[in-house]
């Protein structure tokens, strides 16, 4: 299974034929304890969960053979509520890893409670998607709207709890989700390191391209930021990024993909077989 996912992702530079059925079965047999995964949905649009499910080719075996989804409303119909809800379970189960989608609303007691509980129950907390990691477009919230006009202040979850891994993106790509899952299962900390470092990147904005790259004499006008922008807020003018702030959702992807923000040289060489 693992080999099949890796092959699908091109994670290892080896000829396709090698990932034979035999090898797939062998690796599948080697799988022992399946990690217990939770999925918590705070203030996000479910786009991150949608992106996860876009791994069509590997999703069913991933969910059934490789992990146990032990908690989550959308993915497992298992959820917990302090208010004695007859459909809810009594307490949040222990989890090896919990994916948290969405920023947290400071005025939403239920979300705050669930978030704090998740930190208590999970070994690893992943800020899944830009809303959880950087606040993303919920940063623009000013309250005064239905269903609850009091819900005004949305912050990245790392503002409230200790986060172990951040996977930004609006949404994160299906590939990075699958690659991260594989890395977690393999204990491949080298691959995960950049995402551990990104935990601290909670105040993101398209203007980071100007502040952290152009202003720092690092921009080379390659256009990676403009390609990466998920809302087409970035264009290139005279070889420098130009950010349309009306379109920017503060997801952080432009700066994260920039080759001058961080540089995973060893991994790239490994992936290319160089």
């Amino acid at each position, binding site marked *: 299974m693992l080999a099949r996912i890796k092959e699908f992702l091109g994670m290892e530079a080896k000829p396709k034929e090698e990932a034979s059925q035999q090898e797939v079965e062998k690796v599948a047999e080697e799988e022992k304890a399946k990690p217990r995964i939770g999925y918590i949905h705070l203030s996000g649009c479910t786009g991150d969960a949608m*992106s996860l499910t876009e791994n069509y080719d590997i999703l069913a075996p991933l969910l059934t053979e490789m992990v146990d989804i032990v908690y989550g409303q959308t993915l497992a119909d298992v959820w917990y509520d302090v208010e004695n809800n007859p459909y809810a379970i009594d307490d949040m189960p222990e989890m090896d890893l919990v994916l948290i989608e969405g920023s947290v609303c400071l005025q939403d007691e239920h979300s705050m409670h669930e978030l704090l509980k998740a930190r208590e129950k999970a070994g690893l907390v992943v800020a899944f998607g830009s809303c959880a990691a950087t606040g993303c477009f919920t940063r623009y919230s000013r309250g005064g709207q239905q269903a609850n006009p009091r819900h005004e202040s949305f912050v990245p979850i790392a503002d409230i709890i200790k986060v172990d891994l951040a996977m930004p993106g609006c949404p994160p790509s299906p*590939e990075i989700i699958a690659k991260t899952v594989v890395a977690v299962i393999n204990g491949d900390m080298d691959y995960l390191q950049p995402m551990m470092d990104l935990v601290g990147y909670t105040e993101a904005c398209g203007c980071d391209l100007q502040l952290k790259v152009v202003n720092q004499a690092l921009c080379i006008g390659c*256009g990676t930021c403009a390609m990466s922008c998920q809302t087409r807020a970035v264009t290139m003018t005279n070889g420098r990024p130009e950010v349309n702030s009306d379109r920017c959702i503060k997801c952080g992807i432009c700066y994260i993909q920039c080759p001058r923000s961080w540089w*995973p040289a060893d991994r790239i*060489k490994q992936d*290319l077989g160089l």
Partner: protein
Amino acid sequence: MVLGTYKQIVHARSTDKQIQKISQDGGIATGLLCFALDEKIIDGAVVAGPSDEMWKPEPTVALSSDEILAAAGTKYTLSPNLWMVKEAVRQNGLEKAGIVTIPCQTMGLRKMQSYPIGVRFVADKIALDIGIFCTENFPFESLKTFITAKAGVNFDLVEKMDIGKGKFWVHTADDVISFPIKETHGYEQNGCKVCLDLVSELSDISTGSIGAPDNWSSVLTRTEPGETIFSQAVDAGLIETKPMDEGKFGLEMLTKLAKSKKEKAMKEIDQRKELGLPVPYKASSEKEDPLANV
């Protein structure tokens, strides 16, 4: 290893007369892309195509040999080719995209492929990356300034620009003017100063004029797909090769220039670290090989 990991290094040129006529040196990038397109190894390519303004390239998705030929030749200014990669995959629906990149762009491309954090289903659509040697790049206004002020040539009359033998060459219909490449220093963009890569160490195939005789290119094949495509083009007779000149004006020159770019960049990187300025690379004290692109 200042030239990065490679499988073979040779001199090569396109055998196509039309390509020879319009290309910068050996016509390797143009020739390989045309070959790959004909053979359906790629279904299009992102190249530095022409824009409304002379000598100001525009990242373009080329879908035919004609469009690839229209982009032949070096433009010594910025063309954010990566910008068009998602466009090529989404708008043009390319499944096997080719792309021509200079080293910094190769790095952006490869980082996106290894960590496609916010880039959905693009990484797997890149079939061929041809990396071009690059010592430094110039903002368009810089280029204009030194062509008009130093070479004294009306910008609109320029037919070809070239760097070689320590000089910047400007060709017009009836004249060839040159000035020492040293005089372009101070006009290059700042971001180039920390760049440790002259030869596109992470491309599938790297090519450039450095170390090659006139009208030939130096070529390094690096990845499996790169080696395969290059060999196929040679076998098909579209590219001819000859052994790399190991001497002073060949491999020695390429190695020397690649090394000196790295040494200069490392000095700048170390200096920036001391000043507390951000830089994505390690200080020389932090890495085993002080010249590695890490």
